[in-house]
């Protein structure tokens, strides 16, 4: 293990009775990475983050974080980690400031340093005006930012964030990611799970977890390039019918629907564009929009999951 390999997970398996939640995961995360964890619900994202936070025992395998063996010394690892649970998990009866102070004490931040850091964190989380408000009375986005601030007070080298922006409005979501970017630039190693593909796109590396295994792990750019073929976006007056027509056509690998729009993965856009148009016109469907698009994380993600599903 080199100094740069900040988190090293080797053959990590976690079982809940008969259910294998994590299936021999191997993953190495470098110091200072902003690592995104994506995958469908129930794939094992939360289990992996909880395990890394020392909240779940390890059935087999090894985890080393910041030079500590998690299995042998989970309590020592805890002081090096800032963990933010998926659900709001601060004390509603305590004020914003009291929550910060409580976690400051838990992580042994000396009172002097707390006094020094808290105003900065409040400003950074845009909570300065709400310092004395009870946590239960904050809005969803503010709660998330407070939870993040509570995990940052001890300036942990590792941040584990479990879907930190779920249930948060788009503006707060952007603010939250700006905060994460700043932390990333400061050199904090961050693992963040997210259901939003645009968020995954902002990570330096993304791990796709599926059925307890890391299916793909690469930079967002490389993941997008893993898709063999091109995407065509089509908007028609009847997407369900259009889907039925396009799906059996030659060279069509996949049809994904996004509202009224269809994103069609084809082997070659030059070959198939005309063919699809012809087929739709023949069935008297009106084409409102048709163009070649660059695959986003979302298309790549769905396509990869489908591919894994087929090989299984």
């Amino acid at each position, binding site marked *: 293990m080199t100094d740069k390999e900040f988190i090293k997970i080797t053959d990590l398996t976690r079982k809940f009775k008969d259910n294998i939640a994590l299936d021999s995961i191997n993953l190495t995360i470098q110091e200072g990475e902003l690592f995104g964890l994506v995958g469908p619900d129930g794939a094992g994202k939360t289990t992996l983050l909880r395990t890394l936070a020392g909240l779940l025992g390890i059935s087999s395998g090894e985890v080393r974080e910041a030079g500590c063996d998690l299995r042998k010394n989970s309590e020592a690892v805890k002081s090096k980690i800032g963990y933010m649970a998926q659900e709001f998990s*601060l004390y*509603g009866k305590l004020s914003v400031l009291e929550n910060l102070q409580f976690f400051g004490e838990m992580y*042994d931040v000396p009172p002097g340093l707390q006094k020094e850091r808290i105003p900065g964190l409040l400003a950074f989380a845009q909570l300065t005006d709400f310092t004395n408000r009870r946590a239960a009375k904050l809005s969803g986005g503010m709660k998330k930012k407070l939870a993040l601030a509570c995990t940052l007070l001890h300036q942990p080298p590792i941040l584990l964030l479990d879907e930190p922006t779920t249930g948060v409005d788009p503006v707060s979501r952007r603010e939250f990611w700006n905060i994460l970017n700043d932390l990333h630039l400061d050199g904090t190693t961050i693992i963040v799970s997210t259901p939003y593909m645009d968020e995954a796109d902002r990570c330096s590396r993304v791990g796709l977890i599926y059925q307890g295994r890391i299916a793909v792990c690469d930079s967002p750019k490389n993941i997008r390039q893993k898709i063999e073929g091109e995407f065509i976006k089509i908007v028609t007056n009847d997407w369900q019918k259009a889907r039925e027509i396009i799906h059996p056509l030659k060279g069509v690998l996949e049809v994904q629907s996004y509202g009224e729009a269809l994103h069609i993965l084809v082997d070659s856009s030059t070959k198939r564009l005309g063919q699809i148009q012809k087929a739709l016109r023949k069935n008297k469907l009106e084409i409102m929009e048709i163009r070649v698009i660059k695959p986003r994380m979302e298309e790549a993600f769905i396509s990869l999951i489908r591919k894994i599903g087929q090989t299984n």
Partner: protein
Amino acid sequence: MSFRHLWAVIRKELLHILRDRGTFLLVLVTPTLVLLLMTYSLAVKIQHVPIALLDYDQSPTSREFMHQITAGDDLDLYENAASMEQIEDLLIKGKIKAAIIIGPEFSKDLLAMRGLSLQIIIDGTEPETGGFAVDHIGWRAESFANDILADQILTSGISLDSLEPIDLRIRSWYNPSLEPRIDIVPGLLSIVLGFPAFSVALTLAREHEHSTMEQLLATPISRIELLLGKMIPYILAGMVNVIVIPLIALAWFDVPFNGSFLEFLLLSAIFLFAELSMGMVIGVFMKSQSAALALSFLVVLFPGFFLTGIFFPIAALPEMARMESLFLPGTHYAIITRGVFLTGIGMDTLWPYAIMLVILGAAFTGTAALFFKKKLA
């Protein structure tokens, strides 16, 4: 052990007690309310039991007898019945709890010193009241008959002194008038002062339900810091009760306090430690507040009533129950409260119970710490 961690948890939990209305009521208000309620309902004196009379004798003696029976506050004449049917009807309707039937030969037999021909019928569905009525009618009848006999004997010229060979006078120490309230209040204290144990049992489950446990377990706090930090605030809140509730008992119920108040505070603090540790053991195993509360009722409250010797003497319990009662802090504390309030004994006599409470508290806390895992699953 880090005292900063400990103090941070204590402070947070104290703020919770003060700010959460439900917890505040449960910890600081209900003990007083329950004490008042239970004292009034358990220590009531039976009075004014309605009875009916069926007088087949209709003599001046029988009328005088009836007059004496209902002279006190204990029995009230509801009706002078005309027939057995009417008495049965009154009993069924619940208008009377007992009936006295005076036989036709009542006065004749009495004056001839042949004994009383008297029938008492009671409502067996309320044995407490029925038994009370039988006892009281019996006493009254006996003294009535004795008076008449004494008159007879006096008129025949025999000295009364020679007729009473035994002069039995019963004296109850420490509670001279045998007022039930006095005895009940110190016993009840061992139940109501233990109420914060419920809140302690709930406090870990509450963290699970609000998923604050996940965040808390991710910090480097140690198990014993967390468990003690959760328990100490409730011991402190319990000590408020320990001071306030005896004052209410003294002022309101005229309960005597013969011991040393300082010793009482010390012994109560030890009791709270033991009782609340028991709550903590429950809390460690129950992940939801409702389950923790239900188990607390089964483990803390009901045995507290029936196995700690407050209402039924421990010596009368079956052997298994006697064993169990030894493990209940309330058993030892009930002896302490009665001793301090009524007999005025102190540490020199009560120390074995104090030691037993310390052992129980340490054992319960140890069990809780042993089974509390800093993991979610």
